[in-house]
């Protein structure tokens, strides 16, 4: 990582902040919450503490400005430059400025106030920009409403200035170890012969000719998909993947989300309105029939006629003896459906119609 020129840092660990004014796009409470969460991003990994003050000016003052506001960085309402901050120091030092004419949001529309504040506070604490595209301190705006986790490059650089937090908390999924037992997955799919496991914002690709699985962030391949899927499956006949989250479905070919998606699962598949999410799905390659597992029932959808088969839903346990628990994920390999429940997989032979093997899920990863 790079060290900021002159290595500016605060010489005290207890810092105060004040909010000078607000944006008309968000309520006061939402602004205050976004800013408080942004400070927590940095206090979680350093000895730094931040306290909001009301009567006097804080060490760090956050404020919204229009156009030329007396420093060298005039706002112009354009998307090019919508916020900036000053390195640690007295007066203007540490302060964060936002463009009053920008639209500020608390969702994934431009610009998310929490994300921009967390980035600018990086500068307020002494960090320059990072060249790690995954880092919070990367200069471009790359927010996409996923579960935010501070990047290792950001952690290394801020701890180089202030040291680690006295009470480190386990950052969720900062690194994903496929070999830790008890690991469960959001969704599992086959894709052109690979098996891909999805967990939070990561994927693990198991490729037959590679000795180790490939682990990386979902964004790398599918930046336009939400993380934390409920289910996913491959429609190999049309070389398409379908991802499910809540009552939405995304159809994808390679990296591209197909036009018109996400769509409601009711309108796309014909699910009744009381089905609001999918637990697991798999398309049987030979028949083009897709099985959707929801709680203890399952539906069967014909990919060729694009309609639900009559006579469904049916009880899972009735047609898949031994599968009498919630199905977390399911994939097809040769003549078997592999049902995943928590961290165990059950191999269900489609010819004999019974489970003929079970093992821990991480046998896929050569642990």
């Amino acid at each position, binding site marked *: 990582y790079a060290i900021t020129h002159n290595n500016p840092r605060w010489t005290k660990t207890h810092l105060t902040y004040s909010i000078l004014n607000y944006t008309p796009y968000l309520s006061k409470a939402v602004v205050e919450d976004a800013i408080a969460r942004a400070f927590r991003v940095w206090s979680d990994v350093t000895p730094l503490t931040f306290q909001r003050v009301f009567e006097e000016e804080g060490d760090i003052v956050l404020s919204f400005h229009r156009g030329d506001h007396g420093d060298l960085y005039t706002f112009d309402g354009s998307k090019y*430059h*919508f916020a*900036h901050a000053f390195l640690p120091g007295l007066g203007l030092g540490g302060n964060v400025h936002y463009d009053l004419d920008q639209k500020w949001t608390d969702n994934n529309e431009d610009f998310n106030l929490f994300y921009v504040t967390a980035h600018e506070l990086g*500068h307020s604490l002494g960090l320059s920009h990072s060249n790690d595209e995954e880092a919070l301190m990367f*200069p471009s705006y790359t927010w996409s409403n996923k579960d935010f986790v501070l990047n290792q490059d950001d952690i290394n650089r801020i701890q180089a200035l202030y040291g680690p937090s006295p009470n480190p908390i386990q950052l969720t999924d900062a690194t994903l170890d496929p070999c830790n037992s008890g690991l469960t997955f959001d969704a599992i799919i086959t894709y052109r012969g690979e098996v891909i496991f999805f967990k939070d914002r990561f994927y693990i690709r198991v490729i037959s000719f590679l000795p180790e699985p490939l682990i990386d962030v979902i964004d790398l391949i599918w930046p336009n998909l939400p993380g934390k899927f409920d289910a996913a499956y491959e429609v190999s006949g049309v070389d398409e993947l379908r991802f499910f989250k809540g009552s939405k479905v995304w159809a994808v070919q390679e990296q591209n989300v197909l036009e018109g998606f996400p769509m409601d699962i009711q309108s796309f598949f014909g699910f009744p309105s009381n089905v609001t999410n999918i637990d697991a799905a798999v398309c049987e390659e030979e028949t083009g029939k897709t099985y959707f597992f929801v709680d203890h029932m399952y539906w069967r959808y014909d990919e060729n006629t694009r309609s639900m088969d009559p006579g469904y839903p049916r009880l899972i346990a009735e047609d898949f003896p031994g599968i009498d628990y919630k199905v977390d994920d399911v994939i097809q390999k040769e003549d078997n459906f592999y049902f995943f429940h928590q961290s165990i997989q059950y191999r269900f032979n489609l010819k004999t119609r019974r489970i003929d093997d079970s093992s821990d899920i991480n046998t896929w990863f050569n642990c």
Partner: protein
Amino acid sequence: FPVIQDGLQKNVKTVWKYLENYYNLGKNMQAKNVNGKEVMAEKLRQMQQLFGLKVTGNSDPETLRAMKKPRCGVPDVAP
């Protein structure tokens, strides 16, 4: 007198403004004996390095695309 198409002119302005804002271009262009083109290419290389782009020293389409993304107003290099 080369005729610059509109789009091209706009791109030139974008590149210049971007490097001026975030890579201190312009401040040292005043000096007489400076080879403007080389200084610009050097700044472009700095920017391409930081963004993990192919380091060409030219404002190629990929570089232009990165420049047009919304970003933080703090310069990428020290004054």
